[in-house]
């Protein structure tokens, strides 16, 4: 049971129940769709980027608690950041979940709640789907990514 508490930390349960920045953005400059065909999780990320800065970010989607919370916390983490900084966060997050435990800056602290997901390899994609989708939106926009 304690491992389950470690995986499903309060902050994750809270973001799952009340996801932040969860709305359709009509004035988005970039969007991307993400899809995990194995489990059916879907997420759409909306971005309003001005002068290389993510001024606004939102999402819509359907997924498990890990996926929903990860997306919600991601939107909070990258809002107001430059595209370059957001990409750096994405890389750090990806490394944390795939085994490379690199030292991270302060702004990374919030994302540490997903460290426990590393112990559940089949769930890593649940946590990273939103980030891959964000990355696609930042790169080209209007494209679809899958975790497969």
């Amino acid at each position, binding site marked *: 049971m304690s*491992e389950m508490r470690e995986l499903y930390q309060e902050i994750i349960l809270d973001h799952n129940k009340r996801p932040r920045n969860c709305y359709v953005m009509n004035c988005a400059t970039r969007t991307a769709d993400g899809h995990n065909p194995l489990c*059916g999780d879907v997420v759409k990320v909306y971005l309003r980027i001005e002068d290389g800065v993510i001024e606004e970010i939102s999402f819509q989607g359907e997924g498990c608690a890990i996926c929903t919370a990860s997306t919600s916390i991601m939107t909070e983490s990258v809002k107001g950041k430059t595209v370059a900084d957001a990409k750096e966060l994405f890389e750090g997050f990806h490394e944390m979940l795939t085994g490379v435990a690199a030292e991270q800056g302060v702004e990374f602290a919030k994302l540490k709640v997903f460290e426990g997901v590393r112990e559940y390899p089949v769930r890593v994609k649940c946590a990273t789907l939103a980030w891959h989708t964000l990355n696609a939106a930042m790169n080209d926009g209007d494209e679809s990514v899958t975790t497969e």
Partner: protein
Amino acid sequence: MNPTASATVTPALDTERIRADFPALHQEVNGHPLVYLDNAATTQKPQAVIDAVRTFYERDCANVHRGVHRLSQRATVAYEQARTTVKNYLHANDSREIVFTRSTTEGINLVASSFVRPRLEPGDEVLISAMEHHSNIVPWQLVCEERGARLVVVPIDDDGDIILSEYERLLTDRTKIVAVVHVSNALGTVNPVREMIATAHAKGVPVLVDGAQAVPHLAVDVCDLDCDFYVFSAHKVYGPTGIGALYAKRNRLLEMTPYQGGGDMILSVTFDRTTYAEPPHRFEAGTPNIEGAIGLAAALDHVDGIGLDAIAAHESRLLADATAAVLAVPGIRLIGTARHKASVLSFVMDGVHPHDIGTILDSEGIAVRAGHHCAQPVMARYGVSATVRASFALYNTAHEIDALVAGLQKVREVFG
């Protein structure tokens, strides 16, 4: 046909003795005894199946239908005896009506390709139901697209029963085949396939039955059903993966064009002209999955030894008990409440995604399936993206249902 009914009272299964035959059941997962409730995905294998495959490789390993040497003769006899075992299990008349395949999926593709495709004209229709597995949807979409034909879908009601009046209405002179699942993998519904086949035949339409989820749970008599085609996979009935069988009426097989070309399916080959072997070998190109067929036969013998009536009665009790117990957990909604069901308990829980339930149950040693069960149209029909599915086999126990319910209560504790 009510497959679970029996004139005499069937004795309860001695599950302790039965479980002793399945080595994989005796292990711990995450510090808990394994509770394996993912049998609709695949079943665990009895020692008899493992031994049969092992004996083939230790003693009889040779190619079939060729060499004159002793090992090849033994391998050929074992392979063809396996065909007879499948014939007997399905109550078919003739071993030549059994074609070995890789799986249920390949059986359906074979029929779609060799029987339906050459007969399909633009405007023709293939009729399936709304509860089909992707493997009984996509092969038909492929041939329909190629031939300009239409895939027509019979709707199901809220309980998960096929709406038979719609079925009759949608069966027309444009229908070239009906393809329907015997037991739904996502809902557990046992379809009235015997009646559906009679209805189709009255209009001259042949019928394929997807029996993947039926053969482990109910006695199948293809002559009594009068189906034209019946397909299943070994691994869902305690046999190895990578092997399955297609039953087809002899006259249908004789009408069919080859599926794949190669060795073993020919009589003679020249660069000008090739003549094909008689069915079933016409449809078994290349060296077959010999140990798979032998393992499948061992699995069917094992099930026969226990008795399908006793198995069906045992699983019906488990399903009824599990249904009542799971419904007592707050916030559970069943997906699939047909009157005749087999082995499958599919459900969702308010506010908790099935994948999270699957992970928490796994931490308690309980294996269930969480997802769309390769039946996304079924999920869409019920407005969910996924369900949790507990599916039972002959070796499951009342104690394991208690473990499942305790696991679901833990999910409630975590998610509040």
